[in-house]
């Protein structure tokens, strides 16, 4: 496991965050395809991200962070994901849990964990379980002991980012295993006795996210590491929308990558189709037509991601039922459109390049595998339900940390 050694740089404003992201992205693009093909986890790259200070940009100003706008954070994710969508996804849950701290942690916890974050000591995640009827039934053992400590016992899956992270936050319900108590977030040090991280992720896409199995064998943590996440949903919040917003930015980044790499291959590899009677494939009007359609899709996705960022910022600035509903629906729209853009562009781009696009060593297909895998995180069809209910009946999306 790679751990960031020296304390990280501290980024001070939005412009710096965007510039740092661009700079990092330019170094990640080259190795993306190889890492995917050989399934090499991006340990060095994530260490660079941590050292760059990018993982601290949402820490509030009073705790020394840049507190960048949500719009900026989204652009950072689009940029990273367009360079390497696994690298783009790895910090997703990190920012999600930084946001959990903002909403539900006490002042001491905030001070402690924000300092960790600013020092580059970032968060993986262990959220998902198997076997529950739906994805929100958390069954892992999570019991408060008489001495105030908590014991965690059980297995989590799809622990994106855990192989890289000093901290592994989990979601659990209090009470004994099997009971449906109240939702808590608990920060587990990756080095705690009883924690095992196995990189057994076999997804067809997002292959280097380190989304493996995490087992907790009677792991003990102090009460200070436990945050009452259930409180988040007691009031109006933009919390679920925030997590989803980052997913949308990742999908948009994948769409950008597929369009970019496809364009490059059209210019450098594709042969003109004989019926087009043109010298270069890029001059074929039917090809240009379809490339235009795909570009348009990417534009719509990026525009909705930006508008969702604005809506989240507006809600954060002036939180009430209406602004949070607006933000939640704007995020749902961005998710739905970025899904379509990523999946469609990553598949249709092949048609414009021709037979050579399918050569395995080009590995152009990683974008489709990444898109198809990541977009399924939660179903597009339910995004549309939330949009439709809001637009039709002004029913706001539910508060559950997912939408």
């Amino acid at each position, binding site marked *: 496991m790679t751990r960031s050694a020296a304390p990280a740089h501290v980024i001070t404003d939005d412009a710096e965050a965007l510039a740092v992201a661009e700079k990092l992205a330019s170094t990640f693009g080259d190795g993306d395809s190889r890492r995917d093909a050989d399934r090499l986890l991006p340990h060095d790259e994530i260490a660079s991200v941590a050292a760059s200070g990018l993982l601290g940009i949402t820490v509030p100003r009073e705790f020394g962070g840049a507190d960048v706008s949500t719009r900026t954070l989204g652009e950072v994710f689009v940029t990273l994901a367009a360079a390497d969508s696994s690298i783009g996804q790895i910090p997703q849950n990190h920012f999600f849990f930084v946001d959990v701290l903002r909403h539900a942690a006490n002042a001491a916890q905030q001070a402690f964990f924000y300092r960790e974050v600013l020092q580059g000591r970032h968060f993986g995640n262990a959220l998902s379980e198997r076997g529950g009827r739906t994805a929100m039934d958390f069954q892992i053992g999570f019991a408060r002991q008489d001495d105030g400590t908590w014991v965690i016992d059980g297995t989590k899956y799809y622990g994106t980012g855990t192989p890289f992270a000093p901290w592994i936050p989990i979601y659990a319900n209090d009470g004994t295993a099997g009971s449906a108590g109240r939702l808590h977030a608990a920060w587990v040090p990756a080095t705690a006795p009883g924690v095992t991280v196995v990189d057994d992720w076999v997804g067809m896409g997002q292959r280097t996210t380190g989304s493996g199995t995490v087992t907790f064998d009677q792991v003990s943590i102090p009460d200070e590491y436990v945050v009452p996440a259930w409180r988040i949903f007691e009031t109006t919040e933009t919390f679920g929308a925030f997590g989803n917003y980052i997913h949308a930015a990742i999908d948009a980044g994948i769409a950008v990558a597929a369009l970019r790499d496809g364009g490059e291959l059209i210019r450098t590899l594709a042969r003109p*189709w004989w019926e087009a009677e043109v010298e270069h494939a890029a001059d074929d009007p039917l090809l240009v037509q379809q490339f235009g359609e795909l570009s348009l899709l990417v534009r719509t996705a990026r525009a909705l991601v930006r508008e969702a960022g604005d809506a989240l910022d507006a809600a954060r600035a002036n939180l009430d039922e209406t602004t949070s509903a607006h933000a939640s629906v704007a995020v749902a729209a961005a998710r739905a459109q970025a899904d379509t853009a990523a999946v469609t562009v990553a598949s249709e781009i092949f048609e414009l390049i021709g037979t050579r696009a399918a050569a395995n060593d080009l590995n152009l297909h990683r974008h489709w595998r990444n898109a198809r895998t990541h977009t399924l995180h939660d179903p597009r069809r339910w995004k549309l339900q939330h949009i439709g209910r809001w637009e039709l009946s002004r029913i706001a999306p539910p508060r559950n940390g997912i939408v």
Partner: protein
Amino acid sequence: MSDNAHDHWIAVARTVAATLAVDAVERDRANAQPVAEIRLLRESGLLSLLVPVEHGGHGQSWRTGLEAVRVIAGADGSIGQLLGYHFVNLSNVWLAGSPEVQEDLGRRTAENGWFWGDSVNPVEADLVLTPRGDDPAVSGYVLDGTKTFSTGASVADAIIATGTVTTTGEPLLVAILPQQGGVTFGGDWDNLGQRLSASGSATFAAAPVPPEHVVGSLAAEHTRPVASVITPAIQAVFGNLYLGIAEGALAAARDYTTSSSRPWALSGIEAATQEPYVLATYGGLAARLDAVAALADRVGDRIDAAVARGADLSWDERGELAVAVARLKVVSTEVALDVTTAVYEVTGARATSNHYGFDRFWRNVRTHTLHDPVAYKRREVGEHYVSGTYPPFTLYT
């Protein structure tokens, strides 16, 4: 279509498909030569399906053959492709060959269960046929050169190839028997999809072409409309291939949905099989597949009708057939790309595990549909619809 022979052979194809389905994911990953798969086809009798009864074959129709391709492709796109290409490669013997060629190569194919590959990629330089003496009608030729995308050649008993005669410039269609030497294979097929289609390069070095293996001439003046039915036939194979893969993808998704899918957390529904949007998505895709299947069957009948016209087939009739097949190509491409991408929407995130390998359907369709751009098939169909013109005879149209 409900005659007994047709139903029998479709049942045979289904049995083969069921065998192929068992380890389709593992075989796709291994990217090996499809030797065992060709043996399976041979033992099933499908390789002689279209060989006329008088030459020892089963004498079935293109419609039946194409439906068999579709059934096999549903389980394994590569093997569906190999079977379909085999039908087309072999049909050159009847469409372009003399009665002697038909009797000779046809009978040997049926008797030995030969599998036919090809080496004809039209966008590359032609292979070269050098006469072996003053009168190649007596002494034959040798074939030299390399072609990529020589589908099935490396596992073939016979290879159909096109070469240009050095002395006359005439393009000939010839049969190469690899067991007679002079052929090596690049083993360089490692593509996104159709990974078991053995579509690597073939190199010919003085490969013998005895006069009885000269199938026919491709020179325009010798080309009769019926001989050029070969291009619509291969394009019809494509259409059935895409349709078959899509049918296979949707069926695999259904199996997953009914056995493994969880309802979405927020749905308030007991089982994924009751979620209305999931059902509507399946229904929309199944309806489109049904329409394309109806067209595929009709196109199969039209190929049979064109072949039956024999020497009487006119260029206009050939053109009508080419457009009909082009229409099938367009809609089968569209539905196959849509279905193989959309199935994930109704299976969910866990179905992306490589354990299931559902992506092979998309990879197979995505790879093969790049053969020639569907946008130009649309244009051909549109030109015919608007102006009544037929696409010219090429190896793509």
